[in-house]
């Protein structure tokens, strides 16, 4: 798992950063440019089978190797809030913005200050049929700004750190998902 090496410290850093941003004023929030990560994996299982595992908003802990627990306040309903407790410490709070069983896709938005060095983070995970019958493609994509809102960020809160952290979350999650589904 490529989360920041010590999730608890990363989470604390996030909290300190948020306080700093508040005292610095409001206009600085949008200086950095928005970044994105798109990761895909092909799974040897039908979209139905994959969606049965990843579709439930509160089911992340069942397939993501870094997540200890992921209870959600209102299941797959819009506005449902899930709290991710990470193995080794750290947390993320995410709100469900869209969920569609027919499109096999859901989108959520994270509260700032969680265990990733990002702000304004939103994400969508979806599964669709692969060209080869019986297989599927899972796509996980995210949009976010780096953790540090002003110019001249420290290295652990710059664009590269944000990209690396989110890429790590997606790659490790998708690899584990593939292993779990194909083992069945």
């Amino acid at each position, binding site marked *: 798992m490529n989360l920041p090496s010590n999730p608890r410290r990363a989470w604390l850093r996030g909290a300190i950063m948020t306080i700093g941003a508040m005292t610095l004023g409001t*206009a600085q*929030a*949008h200086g950095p*440019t928005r970044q*994105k990560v798109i990761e895909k994996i092909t799974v040897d299982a039908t979209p139905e089978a994959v969606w049965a595992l990843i579709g439930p908003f509160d089911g992340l802990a069942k397939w993501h190797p870094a997540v200890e627990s992921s209870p959600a306040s209102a299941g797959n309903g819009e506005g449902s809030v899930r709290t991710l407790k990470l193995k080794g410490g750290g947390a993320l709070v995410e709100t469900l913005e*869209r969920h569609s069983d027919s499109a096999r896709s859901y*989108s959520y*938005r994270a509260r700032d200050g969680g265990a990733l060095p990002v702000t304004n983070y939103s994400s969508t995970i979806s599964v669709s049929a692969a060209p080869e019958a019986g297989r599927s493609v899972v796509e996980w994509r995210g*949009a976010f700004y780096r953790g540090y809102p002003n110019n001249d960020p420290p290295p652990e809160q710059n664009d590269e750190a944000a990209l690396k952290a989110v890429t790590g979350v997606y790659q490790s999650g998708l690899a584990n998902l593939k292993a779990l589904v194909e083992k069945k």
Partner: protein
Amino acid sequence: LLLAAAASAVPLAFITNQGSDDVSVIDLDTLREVARIPVGKAPAGVAASAAAGRVFVTTPGSNGLSVIDIASRREVARLPLGQGAVGVAVSPDGRRVYVSDWFGARLLGLDAATLAPLLSVPLGAAPAGIEVSADGHTVWVAERDANRVAEIDVREPARAQVRRRFEVGEHPFGLLLDAAHQRLYVLGVYANDVTVIDLAAGTELARIAVGRAPYQAALIDGGRHVAVSNQRADSVSLIDAQTLRVVGTLDGFGYPEGIASHGANLLVVNWMDDTLAVVDAASGQRRATLALGLNPRGFGAFVVETEPAPSTTRRRPAP
């Protein structure tokens, strides 16, 4: 010069690619990318003006403005400007260019030909989208962090000042002027709505609920509808410009931002997918999907419909 003028006699889209520091030039007749123009860092805002013969591009990553000559499709100037230029618009006569200075919290006005500074008007925090009236007398700017729109009298640059302000839906970023109806559409990114202002009466006409994170709007169908890109809903809302109600939603976009109309086509910039979607505005059918540079924004008026005058004979029109 004749050749250059002939080459530009086609409708073009100039789309800012924030992640690859360049601008994609799309021929809107053939739907092909005909040039990729390197500019300053992290280009975001764009204002293409046939009257000026130029395209102005804000480059927040290098705190400035890049200027592209439409005829030669080359960057002809690059200048530092303010503390983070974001929004940009050109007056309809092509004589002035306006830029919102994000960290400087002000509107800057320049001569579009000489690029000499003309005016600077202090604004609320995080000024973003800009529109200019048909007569060039008035400029509107979204004051994002103040949740307002400022209306600025720019007739005399030395005396340019805010004339009035409108409270709008939370986090306004993009604006659309409907000059024929004297209406201003203001997109509230956090409110997920569009505030419609009657500019003649100075009153709010409606707040229209759209999709998540509405970002930019364009008039389509000869002004009968307003199309709004909803960034976090991956959709476009269609609003009836008469009834001010949502009459349809188009899906299948990827973090759509810039949006424009060209003939029967709706052009939608997909930030997430690095593509331009060309959609038949009436049926919603996808006609083409064109590859762009990285993280395209197209924040502003990115289409040039008409042939610019050859640069040798370009003159400022009489007032």
